[in-house]
């Protein structure tokens, strides 16, 4: 079980990396075709934007861990552990409730987009945006597990000395 999960994480990571690489290559193709071949291709823009949407929500579903998110944690790490646990429980619960009330309307809207296709590549927009549903389900699962672990008294975050993935 544990190894299967590790493998799953490894594979999702490599998919994220591959999407970023694809984004990068599409950009290079675009510049190359315009300036070297003098024959601009239009589909790269759309491909990049589609990949970008997928990259963001795919990675947030399966690659980015809870403590890697951009967070205001001054107060969180300043309070006593039992209060911190309550904070974490409320946060996880809020995320689950938010997803629970919005998943049906969101699914409905995304499903409605089956009538719409992208302008150049004719990709159905439903397919492009469907990653958001996957993201909602995955996020719900992540915070459900976190909630249960926290409620059982495990998994309380400690301040770490390693910097977050922040890039500005």
């Amino acid at each position: 079980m544990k190894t299967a999960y590790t493998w799953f994480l490894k594979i999702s990571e490599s998919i994220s990396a591959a999407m970023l690489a694809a984004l990068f290559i599409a950009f290079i193709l675009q510049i190359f075709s315009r300036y070297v071949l003098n024959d601009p291709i239009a589909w790269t823009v759309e491909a990049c934007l589609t990949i970008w949407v997928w990259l963001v929500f795919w990675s947030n579903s399966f690659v980015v861990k809870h403590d890697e998110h951009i967070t205001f944690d001054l107060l969180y790490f300043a309070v006593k552990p039992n209060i911190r646990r309550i904070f974490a429980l409320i946060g996880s619960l809020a995320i689950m409730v938010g997803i629970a009330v919005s998943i049906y309307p969101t699914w409905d809207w995304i499903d409605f987009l089956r009538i719409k296709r992208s302008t150049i590549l004719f990709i159905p927009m439903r397919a492009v945006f469907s990653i958001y549903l996957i993201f909602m389900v995955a996020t719900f699962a992540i915070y459900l597990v976190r909630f249960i672990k926290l409620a059982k008294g495990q998994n309380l975050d400690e301040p770490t000395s390693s910097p977050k993935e922040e890039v500005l």
Partner: protein
Amino acid sequence: MSLQFALCISTLLFLAGIGTPIGYSTILASIVYLVVAGQDIALAAETALWGLYDSFIILAVPLFIVAANIMNAGTISDRLLSFCISCVGRFRGGLGHVNVVASLIFSGMSGSAIADAAGIGKIIIEMMTKGNRFPPGYAAAITAASATIGPIIPPSIPMVMYALVSDQSIGYLFLAGIIPGLFIGLILMALNFILATIRNFPKDEAVSLREMPKITLNAFPALLMPGILLYGIYGGIVTPTEAAAVAATYALLLAGFFYRALKISTLYEIFVRSARSSATIGLVIAGALILNYIVASENIPSQLSNYLVGLDIHPLAFILGVNLLLLFLGTLLEATTIILVIIPLFIPACGDLGIDLIHFGVIAVINTMIGLITPPFGMLLFVINAVTKIPLKDIIRETWIFMAVLISSLLVLILFPEIVLWLPQKFGYVSSY
């Protein structure tokens, strides 16, 4: 303010305050708004998804992240550093100057202050503290201060985000950052010189003239990068977004083929890491897009603007007030959050008060970069602490004077918009005021 908006903001402050990730907090706060207002809840996803899908310029963010990570992994930073030592190491306060100059050059290649501090900054702090030449706190503090220049001189990730929320031209924003960046660099070097004289910091051994050509040649391809990027953008060859891809490609070619310092496995890790960072920022952007939509549909910015215009507030008083607020928020919040969520509130007011939005953007970016070194929440301080193990309290003790100087420079740039706008105007920017 409507009930739903008040609830939206309190939810946001509450959830973010107790440590829920900012991206999720903004999305949840928007859902609260939509539910109470009786609007379609799907609007949250709709705004975020179409917003991400429609904003081509934001694609520069992941690409600049890749470029910065490649430069740090592929010895490009090291080579630049040897070059800087040979140029300015011989003066009083030697390695302090090297630190600033290296940041100036590096900032012309990457759009990130954190990349600067974690890459070039780490190496130079080791050099500065070797043999007790500089107090570790000082070495860390000047590194942090000079790293803030990274996103001021183009390319710049924060400016891309500002362009997204303000609808200003990235090209002009980038140009407008050049002179302020150089100006801040000079000020920091002057400060370093004065402090070095007072505290008797050592010079570095002068590198003999005979070695100069070799060192320069070694660093030359890397030194070309800022030139290539600027020429590419302003020669009309690539858009600023495409320039990000060019930067990443050039870094890849240099590190991989020219310097032969990049293994495939390292490259893979770089892409994984960059994808992670891009996704965390992407989530905050998604949340900000929804929140900005709500804020706009509540007419908050224009109400604020009308109110301020009604008060007959002087534009200078307004911009100073906003800057004080941003500096305060910068001590607590992440730069991404400030640029994407807070700054859009003031943009219409700037327009109505006759404040140039390019000027405002550069000021706001510099301000949020100062926020990266202000305790208690200063990302740059944390990163340097993490990569060098220099205690935070030593770093912070030495940071105050740099902070004071950076804030004074910011004040000068606020009072004299010409310093910011001169270069873009030379390239055809016409201020609408």
